[in-house]
């Protein structure tokens, strides 16, 4: 993070894809199917539509201010005082966002593979890795993203293909037995995690190389579509294999991997799949930490970003070990409070900035 690093729009879209898919592919299908049943795929499409609208606003601001991050164009648009007020919740929520991902990793390991290991041991090792990755900078992470993306998607496709013999398409019906209410509820959850989190890319979009700026929109929209199709496939396949149990069993993709049995040769591969899924969690957390550090450095007008890496990572570690340590409380905050929190902290500032920038641009045109 010594000089201004630049990445291509393809690399940015890969970072975006792995960020959006990384943890949601494992976590999202179960609560969605638990709430909406066989209508979970409709919920996902509704959440995706809202995500597309947010992406449109994000790219609009990027086109208006191509070399500036959200902090910089917020100062231009709203002034210093109002910027601090509206971006302070952004900061707090981002701190907990990093912690929340690691809480999920710790819960995943505790419930599936490392049942006797204390959670703080797993979380500490994770945070050391995440901090060192963030310290390496965005160029290194972008290069890593290509390999990790291939690994993650390869494993997802492999799991969904190998459980093919267990598919029961009849489990997909009936679609809306309890009406539209549960589907809207599930859409609210899916919107909260992960679609409303895409706003944080406003911090790092200015790092795209000058020659690629015209292609950013196309690549980012494509990444969002790929993310939605992958999550949709995961949800539909979970329903077709697990049926009514899909809402009760957490970590659907991992559960599907446990069921793989091919001629007594390929079986019990869930641990291998589990590690590749953890890659998604790890990368999302690393990228989020990197974004948080850049955001803090810009907001507080600091000279050195590198000095913040370890204390911020340590604070996020402590937050992951002192907040929502109970699984039921964590589930409540993710399924109920998180969408509202994201709307207030992430979405509202961005929409406000987009609105003010739009009005100013049109009032200038009117005057000229």
């Amino acid at each position, binding site marked *: 993070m010594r000089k201004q690093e630049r990445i291509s729009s393809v690399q940015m879209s890969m970072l975006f894809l792995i960020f959006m898919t990384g943890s949601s592919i494992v976590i999202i299908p179960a609560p969605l199917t638990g709430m909406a049943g066989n209508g979970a795929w409709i919920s996902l499409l509704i959440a995706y539509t809202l995500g597309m609208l947010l992406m449109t606003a994000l790219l609009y601001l990027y086109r208006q201010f191509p070399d500036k991050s959200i902090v910089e164009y917020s100062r231009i648009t709203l002034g210093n005082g109002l910027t601090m007020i509206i971006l302070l919740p952004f900061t*707090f929520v981002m*701190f*907990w966002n990093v912690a929340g991902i690691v809480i999920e990793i710790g819960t995943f390991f505790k419930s599936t593979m490392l049942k006797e290991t*204390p959670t*703080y*041991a797993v979380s*500490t090792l994770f945070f050391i890795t995440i901090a060192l990755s963030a310290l390496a900078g965005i160029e290194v992470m972008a290069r890593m993203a290509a390999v990790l993306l291939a690994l993650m998607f390869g494993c997802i496709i492999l799991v969904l293909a190998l459980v093919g013999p267990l598919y029961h398409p009849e489990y997909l019906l009936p679609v809306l037995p*309890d*009406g539209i*209410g*549960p589907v*809207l*509820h599930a859409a*609210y959850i899916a919107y909260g995690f992960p679609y409303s989190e895409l706003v944080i890319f406003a911090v790092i979009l200015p790092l795209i190389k000058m020659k690629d700026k015209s292609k950013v929109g196309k690549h980012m929209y494509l990444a969002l579509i790929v993310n939605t199709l992958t999550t949709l496939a995961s949800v539909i396949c979970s329903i077709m294999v697990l049926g009514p149990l899909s809402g009760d069993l957490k970590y659907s993709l991992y559960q599907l991997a446990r069921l793989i049995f091919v001629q007594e040769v390929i079986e019990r591969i869930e641990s291998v799949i589990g590690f590749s899924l953890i890659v998604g969690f790890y990368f999302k957390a690393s990228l989020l930490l990197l974004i948080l550090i850049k955001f*803090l450095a810009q907001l*507080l*007008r*600091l*000279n*050195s970003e*590198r*000095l*913040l890496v*370890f*204390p*911020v990572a*340590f*604070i996020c*570690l*402590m*937050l992951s*070990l*002192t*907040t*929502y340590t109970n699984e039921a*409380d964590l589930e*409540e*905050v993710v399924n*109920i*409070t998180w*969408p*509202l*929190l994201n709307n*207030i902290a992430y979405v509202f500032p961005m929409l406000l900035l987009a609105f003010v920038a739009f009005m100013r641009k049109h009032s200038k045109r009117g005057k000229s």
Partner: protein
Amino acid sequence: MFGRLLCVLVLAAAMLICDIPKFKIAAPRDRVVYGALFVVLAYLSFLFISSIHGPNVDSVFNLLAAPAKQIIQWLDPAKSLS
């Protein structure tokens, strides 16, 4: 408790060993921010080691639980959230 204390002390020592050279050449503003982060870190470490449930970000987030439940009631009136 001993395990937690040891974990925090080892991590803090490693962090300071890496950061002190950078801290010495940092600008005054950067040092103030680092100091502020260290104060926050010390408080959270105390909560972690002592397992006390003190004021934290979840205390702020929980203030939004009631309005969030209300939103869910509007979306799915058949769902009862206690």
